[in-house]
């Protein structure tokens, strides 16, 4: 019945060559697919750096400082989109951090399982709403109902409306990353604190949040990075002027940000087909890429710290 073996030869154990070949082909195929991601990164960096360099090469440095961002007129005042991004991101964080953090703490520390079961999917659906939709919402609802209530002179397009829209967009991201960080805190810590007679609020503020702080910081950084990179909300709600935006440091005026300025350069109404004006978008793209990459790398460090501790 059973296989009868005396002594074997090495050849008995080398396996079928066809099978081994098949295994090799499969693993090589998978390896190639993994390397596609590296190729993508290389292409992104190369195209950005190369074209951005052409831009820098083709302009006079003085063009980078002025009072408006207007590629068709060879005016590339960098502070216009940069300060715009700063304002929009700042407002977005004012909206998103409190709401996102409160939601995360409530879901992870207070909500009972049934409540969680219903609330989490709601937040996830909010995360799935396309940004054009929020752009439209910011333009048609946030502007008249919130922004123009705060400042009656505010025009129809404002950085403030865009900031609020971007903030709404960022809430689910901050909430979910924060919740992961809180959930990673071992329940033994909470129990130890409760065992000493601490109230839930004390445990949460004195024990859980400090223990999760790296993850929470990561959540904020990721939120900032996401807000800086958001395009459509700003494109729709902040700027009326197409491919031309005046410098402003006020949230209650129309303006542009790095991403929206890029989109405006290629938007069909006044699309630029070539020349340094078009290449300005690669330059902005490179700026944006470097800023978000740095933020993401820092956030990655913080997330890693959470994993290492627990």
């Amino acid at each position: 019945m059973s296989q009868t073996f005396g002594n074997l030869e090495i050849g008995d154990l080398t396996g079928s060559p066809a099978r081994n070949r098949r295994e090799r082909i499969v693993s090589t195929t998978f390896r190639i697919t993994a390397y596609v991601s590296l190729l993508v990164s290389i292409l992104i960096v190369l195209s950005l750096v190369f074209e951005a360099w052409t831009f820098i090469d083709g302009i006079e440095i003085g063009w980078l400082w002025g009072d408006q961002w207007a590629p068709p007129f060879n005016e590339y005042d960098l502070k216009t989109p940069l300060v715009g991004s700063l304002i929009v991101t700042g407002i977005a964080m004012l909206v998103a951090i409190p709401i996102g953090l409160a939601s995360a703490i409530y879901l992870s520390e207070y909500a009972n399982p049934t409540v969680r079961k219903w609330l989490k999917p709601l937040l996830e659906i909010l995360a799935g709403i396309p940004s054009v939709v929020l752009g439209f919402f910011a333009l048609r609802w946030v502007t008249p109902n919130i922004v123009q209530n705060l400042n009656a002179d505010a025009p129809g397009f404002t950085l403030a409306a865009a900031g609020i829209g971007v903030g709404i967009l960022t809430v689910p991201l901050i909430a979910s990353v924060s919740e992961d960080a809180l959930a990673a805190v071992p329940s033994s810590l909470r129990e130890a604190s409760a065992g000493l007679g601490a109230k839930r609020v004390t445990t949460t503020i004195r024990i859980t949040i400090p223990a999760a702080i790296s993850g929470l910081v990561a959540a904020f950084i990721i939120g900032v990075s996401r807000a800086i990179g958001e395009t459509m909300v700003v494109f729709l709600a902040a700027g009326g002027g197409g491919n031309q935006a005046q410098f402003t440091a006020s949230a209650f005026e129309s303006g542009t940000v790095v991403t929206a300025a890029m989109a405006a350069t290629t938007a069909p109404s006044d699309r630029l087909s070539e020349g340094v004006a078009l290449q300005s978008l690669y330059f902005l793209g490179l700026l944006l890429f470097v800023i978000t990459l740095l933020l993401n790398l820092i956030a990655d460090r913080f997330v890693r710290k959470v994993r290492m501790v627990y």
Partner: protein
Amino acid sequence: MTIETETEDTDNVNIFEVSDVNVYYGDFRAIRDVSIDIEANEITAFIGPSGCGKTTMLRSFNRMNDLIPTARVTGELKYRGVSLYDKRVDPVEVRRRIGMVFQKPNPFPKSVYDNVAYGPRIAGNVSKGAEMDDLVESSLRKAALWDEVKDRLKSSALGMSGGQQQRLCIARAIATNPDVVLMDEPCSALDPIATGRIEELMAQLKDEYSIVIVTHNMQQAARVSDKTAFFSVEVSEESDLRTGILVEFGSTDLMFSNPTDERTENYVTGRFG
């Protein structure tokens, strides 16, 4: 009885010849300089306190250690005369001849039938429906499970009790018609009744297969095995590192009645471990 034992002894063949084997996990040496010969058609038990490297040793017999990226084996480990860690050896081929039953029952989340049929199917040596049906039935019978599952071959294996699942895993292992079956504490997750059934089963299986079983239940080793290897941990004075070593190896009767090593004696009499 005596005669039978003697006839077995006359044609004894070593299935494993282990000399000076060390297994490392990264820089950590889990077992040191183990040398042991394991005979065919016997039940060999590995006993010893937990963490002494029994599982590690067992898993190097069918190249299961290859699945742990940091694991590394040095020394000579021969299976029927062929060096198992030779570069040319295909671990898949090895595992088709040397089956394994794990500490926790791990049936596939498939039907009872498909669990048993899986090995033969991928090996490609049984294809026809009726032939496969026969093989599944005979494997389940050998694993003393047939009567309990013959009416529910198509239902999920995950619905069975722990003891049934472990016997299914034994049926799955023997369905590929292996030469050796390695068992890593197969009863540790089971109740005494299920354990008893599996011990009976091993006694029946040993005519056809060579069995190496890890257990830290000494009574079990005494009940089922022909030979026993006693492993222990040596704690290094300076570095506090724990290394597994083979203390003593011999006939089970002798090991339990008249151990030569003091450490073995302490262990089997329950004074330590």
